């Protein structure tokens, strides 16, 4: 068993993960925080670190945050799990799902 502390967190909301950051690429410039019309994100209290997702279920999923980010790969939006569509490759008949 790990020694990790167990916290008393309430249930989170759904979807819980509209946006993720790659801390290796993101430099915490907060451009995305200021372009988000919904104010889903807040700046990280530690300067230079990726923003935090504070109000995930308010996300409108237009991807303006990702669209404005100058560092490709720093931020990615993720459609809610129940809203991921499928496609089929015509010649092979294989099925796929939008997975990100």
């Amino acid at each position, binding site marked *: 068993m790990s020694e990790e*502390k167990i*916290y008393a*967190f309430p249930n*989170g*909301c*759904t*979807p*819980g*993960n*509209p946006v*993720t*950051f790659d*801390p290796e690429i993101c430099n915490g410039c907060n451009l995305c925080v*200021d*372009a*988000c*019309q*919904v*104010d*889903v994100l*807040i*700046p*990280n*209290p*530690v300067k230079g*670190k*990726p923003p*935090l*997702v*504070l*109000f*995930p*279920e*308010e*996300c*409108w*999923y*237009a*991807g*303006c945050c*990702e*669209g*404005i980010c100058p560092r490709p790969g720093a931020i990615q*939006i993720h*459609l*809610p799990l*129940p*809203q991921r*569509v*499928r*496609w*089929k*490759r*015509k*010649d092979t008949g294989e099925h*796929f799902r*939008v*997975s*990100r």
Partner: protein
Amino acid sequence: MNWRQYVKKYGLIEWPYPVRYGEEREIEADVLVLGGGIAGCWAAISAARKGLKVVLVEKGATVKSGSGGSGCDHWLNTPHPGTDVTAEEIVGWELEMTEGYCNALSRYIAARESYETLLEMEQMGGVIRDLKDEFKGAPFRDEKTKFLFAYDYKSRIHFRVRGSTFKVALHKECKRLGVKILDRVMATGLLTEGGRNGARVVGATGLHCRTGEFFIFKARAVVNGLSRHQRNWCFSTEIRGNANFRPTQIVGDGHAMSWRAGAEFTMMEKSLPTSFASGNVFQPYSHGNGINTWVPCTMVDANGKEIPWVDRDGRILKTVEERCMPAPGQRFMGERTQGYTHKRPELIPDLEERIRKGEYTLPLYADLTGMPEHERRVIWGLMVGEEGKTRVPVYIYYNEAGFDPARDLLQSYMFLGGDPMRGSVRPQDRTGGEIGDAGGLVTDWNLMTNLEGYFAAGDALFAANYHYHAAATGRYAGRKAAEYAEKTKFSPIDRKQVARERRWVYRPLENRDELEWKELNAAACRIMQNYCGEYKNEELLKLALISLRELQEQDAPRVCVDNPHKLMRTLEVYNILTCNEMIVHASMARKASSQILGFTRLDYPELDPPEWKKWILLRNEEGSIKTRDLPLDFWKPLKENYEKNR
């Protein structure tokens, strides 16, 4: 790192912005524009071009906010030198489609000025032509001007544009012209002369959504570009943002504050069943939706069998190009398929029946693979790449996941209960303002409301819709507001009214800490589903009013607010409660059922009796509801009225 991970590592986080509850800032403007969406930005630009001091107040981030902030792929209804279709004919299409329930006044202004507006969009940096010659030789391209057209390749009144460039360009132009932009400020109330209901509008109040600071705006003219009501019948506490077709920020703040001040509204009784606003379906525009972006995509069934397209007379269309040509004898095609005269081709109308009989097998797919290459690229590229809400989450995202429009079939959720426009819908899950034409503010030919000095544009207007319309009416309202401001003096602000507004804004901070705003919103929707849903009668509507009052008096004071953001969200729900009351009052005033308004009164079942084919205008006069009627065609004659007033 998400919030939970961060808290585990570092402990609870303090609110990241300075908190300034109660601190006041007073700002003066010749023209105050509320809402920095499409109409608001255009209004600000056209007023600033006249050399006036313009202040723009936006709840989100002007650079991207509003329904048109992330994109626009079709710029509709635009007469221009390359077509002989006139503004009168375009409004004629809209009148036919809505059986007369159309804001012909604003639609006509928009049609007359849309082309100029589009060209100005280009000057500001918006991309409206195929400058890179990506579609050279395509039947929807004009080789001389490099304009690209949609839906009707012959009469060419609907432009295909790269609208993801528009909002950024508008924002830049506002800044260049010296418009003072206040982002993250929620407009909370209107200030009127002497603080009186129904009097001239002389300013507004606002709340900073990050700091909680209070704003007092003093203005010579005010423009409302705040869009309209949402979340009145349906609210998903979970997939919340994505359950709204229009952005999360749009809830009807503008309607509620205008109502409190005494502005006149119409068509608020309209509502239609919807499935997507419940949050139980797919994101609008994320799949093979045939409404506009995907037109004229080939559709196939699970076995690859093609589903035929037919024209307005039921004639099967054999080629892709035929789907974009008017039927024999047809003057031009509208963007929607309603009405006969300007009906666009669509998939065979008895498709559902044929699926049931086994002729076609579910699921269906959008099949771009066999389409002419330019059609494939213009749909999966320009249209899906530029349409609002689809650039990142669909175009970029699916491409990255490996979707290849030349090889792959995109599953369509039509008929699987997931399509936002059809699907399985509970009749009480309704939409008022989310999609299409909705109830809103009534104006004269200056786009001025019944409150002097208070103008409106875009989706805030009744029976309004579309990007071209928001742009052109915003530009027009800004011009008219500037002309008005130039000949009008500032009026003193009534301090008692400011104090009342302040109290309203901050009262939630004193609330008992028991509920959160989402529960209140869900309860407001349940009341509408129960008492103002598919079926209405006097008794149900009375119960709706009683229940909404109860919620306001007993439950609203229990909603907790722990930071300025949640204060903003709570005030939004208070405004939703006001919009719901407006809807109920409007429903009480229409004592007849109406098909086009989606309005069924069990106690007045006759559908659209001629004496009720009229606008019913409502306003709140110091708490009592005043109504008056206008004939549906009160705007007549269009051309003369426009030319006299423009």
